[in-house]
């Protein structure tokens, strides 16, 4: 029942999905410890077969592997992380640099935090915040395994946290969301439109907090793994209507984001955000927006 409801919604948005799409396994090379070439040679010498993901700097699909990717010497030494391709894209859009101050607002379990640290070559400051202590244990392990030395991690609700006037060059808001069916086979039986509405409301609170923490000229990347427009395009419309932020177009994979949602016309600049429909990208569903504080 719920499956039909959601698939019909996607169809009304112009995408005819089957609801059984799956993504390919992918990894990200940890450039704090190795290079793409070194890691590929090392894994392929042990029988794995990798193919480069053209729209990512350090992302590879895993086509064959005669060993467990999560229990190899290379994994335990932090030479790579297992990270789905679409999930690697937001940090590429954030484009953090060495020496900057970066806030990762809903950071656990830390895949994107370690990716930010690698892009910054461990130089500068990352403040990683998450409200879930359980998920922060995974983040702590990832930081250690990947050799991250420029991160402070806080167990706190980013909306309630006192940042003591600190502002950031870049903020990543990988917001808690309704998720999508590609990564979770039971998704359709768990989700309701009420969840979507509640998540969208909480995401707006986080967007407001994120905007206040940006320096003038600072970059905000807002991302979800939800296909629901209430959590994606409609939140971005709210963001630019209510804050001094200007959207920036994103080059890359996926489709232009929607500018008409269930009959409502949105700001045309929202088309510069990217929407990952699973049937087109071969990834999980994803949405990425980039905005600059004026």
């Amino acid at each position, binding site marked *: 029942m719920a499956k039909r409801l959601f698939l019909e919604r996607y169809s009304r948005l112009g995408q005819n999905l089957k609801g059984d799409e799956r993504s390919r396994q992918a990894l990200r090379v940890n450039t704090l410890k190795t290079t793409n070439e070194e890691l590929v040679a090392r894994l392929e010498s042990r029988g794995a077969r990798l193919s480069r993901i053209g729209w990512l700097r350090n992302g590879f699909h895993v086509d064959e592997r005669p060993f467990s990717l*999560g*229990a190899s*010497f290379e994994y*335990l*030494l*932090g030479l790579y992380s297992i990270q789905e391709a679409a999930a690697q894209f937001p940090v590429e859009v954030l484009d953090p640099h060495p020496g900057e*101050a970066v806030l990762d607002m809903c950071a656990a379990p830390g895949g994107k935090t370690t990716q930010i640290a690698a892009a910054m070559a461990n130089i*500068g*400051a990352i*403040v*990683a915040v998450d409200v879930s*202590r359980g998920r*922060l*244990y*995974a*983040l*702590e*392990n990832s*930081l*250690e*395994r990947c*050799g991250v*030395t*420029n*991160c*402070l*991690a*806080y*167990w*706190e609700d980013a909306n309630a*946290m*006192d*940042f*003591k006037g*600190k502002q950031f060059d870049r903020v990543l808001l990988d917001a808690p969301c309704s998720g999508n069916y590609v990564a979770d086979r039971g998704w359709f039986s768990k989700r309701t439109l009420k969840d979507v509405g509640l998540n969208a409301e909480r995401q707006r609170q986080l967007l407001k907090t994120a905007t206040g923490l940006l320096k003038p000229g600072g970059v905000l990347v807002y991302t979800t793994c939800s296909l629901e427009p209430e959590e994606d395009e409609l939140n971005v419309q709210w963001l630019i209507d209510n804050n001094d932020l200007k959207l920036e177009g994103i080059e890359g994979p996926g489709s232009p984001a929607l500018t008409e949602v269930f009959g409502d016309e949105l700001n045309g600049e929202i088309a510069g955000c990217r929407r990952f429909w699973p049937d087109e990208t071969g990834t999980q569903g994803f949405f990425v927006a980039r905005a600059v504080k004026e």
Partner: protein
Amino acid sequence: MRSLNEFLAAVGVKASYDEETLLKINTKRFSVGEELGNFVLDRRQLVYAGRYLGKTRREFLPSSILLEELSRVEGLNRIHVDAETAWLFVCGRDIFGENVRRVEGEFAGGNAFLVMFGGSCLGYGVVEPYEERLILRNVLDIGDFLRRER
């Protein structure tokens, strides 16, 4: 070896830390530079900070970050092992003396050694007698990342 400095001395490091300058989160010890230190906001909510050095349980357990740094320092106690022994060590097993391919330092009772495979440090252990021979007792290995996830 209950402290960071006792561990460092045991593997042959000449320098030591002023432990008062380290940031402590429960039993964990971190080194935080000035730039990052500007973002230490609420210590009570902090769970991880900068360069993680290790934690003390019954013994000091160095972080994999510290182990990797030490693996590049000349003159420390190290043993080098082959792939099979390396994997058994990562699975939590001790290392029999006869399975050590190369030793840097004196492989004698009570001494601590970093365990090396292919240029990477997999953990450390302490030499102990076992049925008239010597073993390296596994104190910490990187397989701990998997065991923590359970």
